[in-house]
């Protein structure tokens, strides 16, 4: 797997030479600062609404960055035929898949660090506190969630013809999981058989991205989560990431490139 790291570094370079990240960061910062400039009842110590808004923007922005950046990786390589000189080197297709994944994931990680620094500064100006453990746990788990999303986009880019359709589908699926994933068991219990079994099976099969969402805990200053739960969630993300990467590799390994 020696080729993985060089491929990943080229992906990171590409993503940071494009403008997407900067646009989304500036947009997030602008909206947050604009909302922060509104004072409610002449009280400038109100922080939670601003934290919630900032985190929501961070979540949306990083999801957009992760999905759009990943969805175009392999299709662009094939469309622009840069995959040909790449695979003419001693590089396996598995290394290309993992390298692309790693590059996109690392780029998302760098973006997350920048976003969370901004969040920390905004939060500290109001609350005068740096709950670093909470920030670390939230950032890490969000990054783990993005690993699943990036792997899902990569697999999707080999299934769906156009990067735009892949990006839209992955974005919708990720949003749907985040919104209703946790409640599918409740929904299943209200259904008759065989729908109940099907929905329950779906509930257990799909990657529960909402597990990685610590926004409410962060906004409302709850204590950090238990470290065993943090570690278990990390393993859960790792497992699903590999599942999607395996799907991507199986789909890519024998596919004609031209």
């Amino acid at each position, binding site marked *: 797997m020696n080729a993985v790291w060089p491929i990943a570094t080229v992906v990171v370079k590409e993503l940071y030479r494009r403008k997407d990240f900067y646009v989304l960061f500036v947009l997030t910062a602008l909206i947050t600062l604009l909302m922060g400039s509104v004072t409610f*009842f002449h009280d400038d110590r109100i922080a939670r609404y601003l934290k919630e808004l900032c985190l929501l923007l961070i979540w949306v922005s990083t999801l957009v960055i992760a999905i759009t950046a990943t969805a175009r990786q392999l299709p662009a390589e094939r469309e622009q035929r840069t995959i040909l000189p790449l695979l003419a080197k001693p590089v396996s297709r598995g290394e290309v898949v993992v390298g692309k994944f790693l590059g996109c994931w690392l780029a998302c990680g760098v973006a997350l660090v920048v976003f969370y620094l901004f969040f920390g500064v905004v939060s500290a100006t109001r609350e005068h506190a740096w709950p670093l453990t909470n920030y670390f746990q939230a950032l890490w788990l969000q990054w783990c969630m993005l690993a699943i999303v990036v792997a899902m986009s990569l697999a999707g880019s080999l299934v769906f013809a156009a990067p735009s359709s892949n990006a839209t589908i992955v974005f919708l699926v990720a949003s749907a999981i985040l919104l209703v994933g946790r409640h599918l068991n409740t929904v299943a219990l209200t259904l008759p058989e065989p729908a109940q079994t099907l929905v329950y099976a779906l509930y257990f099969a799909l990657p529960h991205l909402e597990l990685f969402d610590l926004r409410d805990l962060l906004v409302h200053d709850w204590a950090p989560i238990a470290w065993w739960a943090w570690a278990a969630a990390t393993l859960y993300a790792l497992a699903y990431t590999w599942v999607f990467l395996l799907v991507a590799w199986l789909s890519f390994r024998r596919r004609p490139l031209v």
Partner: protein
Amino acid sequence: MPSPYLVLVFLLTVCVSLATWLQPHYLAWGGSRTGDGGLLATLLGESRRLFAAQFFFKADAYFHSGFYPTIFDNQIVEKELHMSEESEAARTPRPPEAEARTTQWSPGEDYGFLGSPKDWLDRFSRNFFPSRHTHLEQKSEAREILPWLRLSTWLDPHRVESYTVAAFWLRTRLGRPELAAQLLHEGWRANPDSYEILLALGRIDEENRHDPVRAHNLYALALRKWHRQQDGNAEPDLYTYRELLGHLVLVDEKQGDWAEAVQYLTLLKKISPNPAAIQRQIDEARAKLTPAPGPAPGPP
């Protein structure tokens, strides 16, 4: 073919002329903006009421530090909120119905609306979001619910609850009764028939400004409005009615107007679930109403 710059200048001139011509018409036109005002309200149209309701519930979610049911969770929780009820309990005699409302989400229960975990994934997932019923404990935390209530009032000025709940928190936890009064006056202008806002204003006069006379006038006005709106209703708002009568009795007692206090207590007895207790209060008031036999007052 004219120069593109000339065309640009011409178009800009037309735009500016149109804008200056339309401005007076825009100002003269009331339309659906009357009374509601605000760019946000104009932009969002009628959907702003949905947003206002959503922000109001958001405030309650903040009151519970993020522990809040979604549409999928057990709907045993009434959508009527208890943001303003907890602290009130210490001050006002509460009807049993109101007590019931706060006990449905018992802080003693571990799981609240979530119920016990249905499976291992459900149990595991509860580590990652607020899954315990709590209320804002610290005084300073109370301010956190205010932005959502303020947004709610901006988006739907006819949503009376947003004013009364926000005013309650400003007055009680944050110690800013003047701001609360200012907000309530704003709400009153948008809802001149609201007896709830008058009740809240009366309480500021009674409890913060210590002006029982003005409080009495506001409560009395609120009571008249209540009768005007609720008499004949199949399900009148007895909760507010009880509160109004209770506060009228309190200010009458403060002012020593025992006769009127007896009148209000008599009304209260009719709807109280515990009429015996009210009867005892009536008897006590009547005793104060009848002057005790003593030495006749001498000439000044």
